[in-house]
């Protein structure tokens, strides 16, 4: 009984369509979260007074886990993106991260800014190492 419907789904002709739409929905939700987070940093409490950002983030994270699990179970493999798409996304995310960091550190004491930037750089280095190893 356990997950016995999965082999059936695997061979359904509509499965790739639904899975592609699910992926696209996840992308849109992540983009929505980025917009809301940027707004919250620009205008503190403007978003959090209306939307529970932690719940939103938790939901997206859970959907990503579900997406990954389904892609393994259903043998659905994402097409590897073209190089220029990866580069554009990387530049966009990098600029967005730097902007958020600068806005968040506005009016912080210099020592705190240096400490936070140092920690962020170390974390970025760690993530890069992990990514390259994987």
């Amino acid at each position, binding site marked *: 009984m356990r997950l016995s419907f999965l082999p059936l789904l695997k061979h359904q002709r509509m499965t790739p369509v639904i899975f592609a739409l699910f992926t696209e929905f996840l992308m849109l939700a992540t983009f*929505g979260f980025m917009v809301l987070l940027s707004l919250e940093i620009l205008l503190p409490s403007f978003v959090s007074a209306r939307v529970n950002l932690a719940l939103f983030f938790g939901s997206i994270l859970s959907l990503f886990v579900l997406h990954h699990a389904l892609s393994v179970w259903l043998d659905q493999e994402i097409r590897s993106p073209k190089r220029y798409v990866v580069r554009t996304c990387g530049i966009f995310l990098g600029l967005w991260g730097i902007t958020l960091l600068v806005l968040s550190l506005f009016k912080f004491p210099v020592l705190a800014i240096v400490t936070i930037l140092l920690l962020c750089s170390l974390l970025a280095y760690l993530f890069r190492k992990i990514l390259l190893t994987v």
Partner: protein
Amino acid sequence: MSFLEPFFPIAKTERTFYLIGRASLYVISISLVFFWSLRIIFPTIPFSFDFNAPQSTKNTFLHPRSTTDQSPLTNGKIAGKQTLIGNFESPQTFSRIRVSFTLTNKSPDNARLKASLSRSYRSFFLPIDETPLASFEHPPLYRDTTNTYYAETDGVLKRFVSTEAYLSRYPESFALPLATSTARSFPLSDEWIGFRPGSLLAFADGVFLVMDEHEIRPFGNPAILLSMGYRFDDVIQAHEEEIGIYERGRVLSFGAPQSDGTLFQDQDSGAYLLVNGKKLQPITSPEYRKFILEKTSPIIASLSSRNVTLSCVPISSWFHRRTLTCDMPKNALPSEFGSAFQLSLKNNAPDIPVDLEAITISLVTDRTQSNFTLFTHQIFSRLLNRFGQNT
């Protein structure tokens, strides 16, 4: 893969389904963003009370009660000629107020109710005490050689928790030197005397309002403190020992009443009124008035504007016979003196009792160009404030 191609290889036969699904996904997403933006730019803020669940924390229409004896009317039953009152508070701007309530099946269809609304500070709606504060009364007060202050009450000596706590209540000149004979003749109480009720105390990251001799309550956020009419200039920095003598009560939110000891000034007559035991007590003692004005700034209110009321007669809607609704324009209510509202619901029928199931008051922002401009100005000034530019 590009943004125009699917994330997965899709057979040509299913391409049409995919395109339809994708278009629907984008249409739904854009519609959701559009309607969410509309709700943010032109909000409708509801305040409601469910008489079937009077203890529910979701009830934002506060303390429904009878006008005559202030007794709670949380069962929703309004007898003939009786009036139900309740409060809510919102510092935000809006266009009109919609009053709506639902009758239970037990209630007659021909209910004759009249809704009235006035605006002021929550405690400024209290009735005026006929006995004014005519003298600066105080118990025998002492100061010992270590500058500890004492008050002799009920045959015992009570210590003030600090000099600042004493000075928040009485001038220094009232305290007599504590003679050894006095100290011996009265037992020393374990109870401490703190700050004057109505004082604002800052400790750690919070600001607290002294409610009475035993309780302090923290403000939920700075906007609540300002909305209640208090000022940050009047906040006293307190120490751990001074705060430690009090029990901490619930967080103060919008709509909370100002505590006993809060000072109001009526702008029309210039009279000073002190909140005291669910009444507004006029201060006629020049000595006390001079003292309290040195300690705190009065909240400027207006007795004439608290009496300005908007009224409407709710009528039943065509789709729901038991739901009665009416609208009141906001612009007729003065907005300078407080953002707390008091709604009165009078049952005009002499012999027919009315049984309410729920009541909802909505502050509606109309979708107009001026409201949109106001919203953009508010956002712009918040942005400037965020980066240290005062507007």
